[in-house]
């Protein structure tokens, strides 16, 4: 509405004159310029990020090689010289794992949608389905039969609260698909437990392809659980054990341990001996936010990120001695083939 002259805004470009063709011109010209600038940036961004091309055929056949994700694509290198020549597959994955010729790849369809792909040794897709949320963990049992994954689910809480997780398991032999472990009956410290806030993440399988270990959180605490896939039950074994990874001989679990039980303090890479339930810190002192992978019975590999976010794969001895060493630069999500 109009206003008295005393109300004339000092900020007006042409106070006192009607609408001002000048102002409209300025607005149109500047808007066009700004939108062109944005358009130019979009074009540049597209050019600056060429999809890596496949350099050599990649297979998941067992062998002394290392599987990982590099530049968001599946890659394989020689175990003897892991940071040397790498073969890059055309398949885009944000997480991968493989064992005994079965692979898993969490494949981005678009920024919002991820596809879980179960792969054969030649990277052929044997099963695929959409997983909800943002990919976090992926595992295959040593025999290649069982596949597990974890995603962060939180579209509901874009502006409030934290993420919750969704963990599923797929049995490649029977075709059984459990979309969420939250369907399983929970025994917490010996008592049946039902709560809305139960979350699971980071599955690792035992040799019988039925038992598995994972993390469960409820009531602000995080537990190591042992699950029985056929019986659809889980029970807690220990607390403050996250992202377990069972050693090839099945006796030890590598995991990340929240420092002072506070994830905000970061995580210490540690080892749990299942027969004594004793915990040993490994030599890596930097915070490891990953599910470690055993390269053999003596060595675990894990991803660390530089301040600028670049990932790299490191290894450390599983017995707590020695010191960490860089295995592959510019890579993440390791698995020994």
């Amino acid at each position: 509405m109009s206003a008295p002259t005393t109300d004339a805004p000092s900020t007006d470009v042409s106070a006192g004159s009607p609408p001002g063709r000048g102002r409209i011109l300025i607005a149109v010209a500047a808007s066009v310029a700004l939108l062109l600038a944005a358009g130019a940036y979009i074009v540049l961004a597209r050019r600056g990020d060429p999809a890596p091309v496949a350099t050599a055929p990649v297979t998941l056949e067992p062998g002394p090689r290392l599987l990982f994700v590099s530049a968001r694509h599946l890659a394989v290198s020689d175990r003897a010289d892991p940071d040397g020549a790498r073969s890059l597959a055309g398949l885009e994955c944000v997480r991968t794992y493989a064992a005994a010729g079965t692979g898993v790849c969490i494949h981005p369809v678009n920024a919002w949608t991820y596809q879980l792909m179960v792969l054969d040794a030649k990277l052929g897709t044997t099963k695929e389905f959409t997983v909800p949320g943002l990919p976090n963990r992926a595992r295959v049992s040593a025999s290649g039969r069982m596949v597990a994954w974890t995603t962060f689910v939180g579209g509901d809480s874009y502006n409030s609260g934290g993420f919750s997780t969704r963990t599923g398991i797929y049995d490649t032999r029977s075709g059984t698909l459990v979309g969420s472990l939250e369907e399983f009956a929970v025994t917490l410290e010996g008592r049946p437990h039902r709560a809305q806030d139960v979350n699971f993440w980071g599955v690792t399988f035992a040799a019988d392809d039925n038992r598995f270990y994972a993390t469960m959180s409820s009531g602000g605490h995080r537990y190591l659980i042992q699950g029985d896939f056929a019986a659809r039950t889980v029970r807690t074994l220990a607390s403050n054990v996250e992202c377990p990874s069972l050693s090839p001989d099945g006796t030890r679990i590598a995991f990340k341990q929240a420092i002072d039980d506070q994830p905000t303090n970061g995580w210490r890479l540690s080892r749990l001996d299942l027969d004594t339930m004793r915990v040993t810190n490994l030599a890596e002192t930097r915070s490891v936010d990953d599910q470690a992978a055993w390269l053999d019975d003596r060595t675990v590999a894990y991803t660390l990120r530089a301040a600028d976010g670049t990932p790299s794969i490191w290894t450390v001895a599983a017995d707590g001695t020695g010191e960490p060493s860089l295995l592959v630069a510019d890579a993440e999500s390791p698995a020994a083939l």
Partner: protein
Amino acid sequence: MYLSTVKSGTATSAPPTDGRKGLRGRFAAVSANVFALGAVSLVTDVSSEMVTAVLPLYLVLGLQLSPLAYGAIDGVYTGATALLRLVGGYVADRMHRRKLVAGLGYGMSALAKLGLLAAGRSAGAIGLVIAADRAGKGLRTAPRDALITLSTPPHALGRAFGVHRTMDSIGAFLGPLVALGVLAAAAQSYDAVFVTSFCVAAIGVLLLALFVRDHRGTLPARPGATPVRLRDAATLLADAPVRRLVLAACLLGLATIGDGFLYLMLQRREEVSTVWFPLLAAGTSLGYLLVATPMGILADRIGRLPVLLGGYTALAVTYLLVFGPFGGWPLLVLTLGLYGVFYAATDGVLMALAGPVLPERLRTTGIALIQTGQALAYLVSSVLFGLAWTLWGAQAASRVAAAAVVVAIGVTVLLLRTRPTQPAVPTQPAEPTR
């Protein structure tokens, strides 16, 4: 509905269509200034919702922040605005510069988009940038709403806010779509989303600078006019109608549990895939933008309080429907539609209700006070609802929430029922007579 602009002899800014003589002297349903503010909000909301839609993806996938770090950043997000909003409102009133303070807020949020680029992958820096963005939002909201009330005759406030909120939610609706388009066009580059978002926000600031007219208060020319003092701001609450309004706003805020919870319950009930989650918010936005203007007009006709309370009734029904008799698509459409109606009938209407009650010189401070009170109450209610959910389960908690809304409606009636004061409030010459 007749939307029009009016041209006055003095300084006027208006969209290009303005300036034709035929409009002179005709009743302007919605002033050019409200349209200009609406355009600014539309453009700005496209920009900010673009970022809101991709931020979780960017933080967790692009930067591989753990959910915990994300949660910490999120906390900053919500906590950053409350106090600054009050300070901004007071400063705007004291300096008689509502446009300047709003402009600072818009500018701050625009720069924050570039800040996201500069912050790189440092969680701390990202937290600061997001805080700056939210602070900008806190700064601009009250002066903007005050400008709307000062640019509109009291009897047409509902319509003015309705039109503004419609334009605003069109922006909110478009934002995620634009972000999706940019991501697709730029080979999933989040940077491109931020740069585009900045450019769009800059256009918003530009529109504000060029086309929005400030209201520097009624008595700026009188020498010796007393400036607004802190004590004056404090006396706002001594005024019974203002106090009752703030109280009612807080109470109604306390009965509102928050979008996240509602969408989460819908997801649990209907197993909505997370992929479709952003669509729940879009459904609400759609309902909001479709009925915001009609609700505003209705509020001017039958009274703002009945429409406001009708909106909260829609909210109570929404809470009951979540675990109500039917499910599937009808459930989603009906709950989201009603939820949109709730927003449409309450958000702008409350401001329209507040405008005439607040003295003009303290308009911005008063609006900031109401909005802050409501926001803080809303924060408390979210915590309480989370607790109720854990203790009693979602179904019982949602029913308790519905009951709380009913109680809040009842108390609000008692608080605000006093005789209809509206139209010709003599102390209220927001509009010059013509």
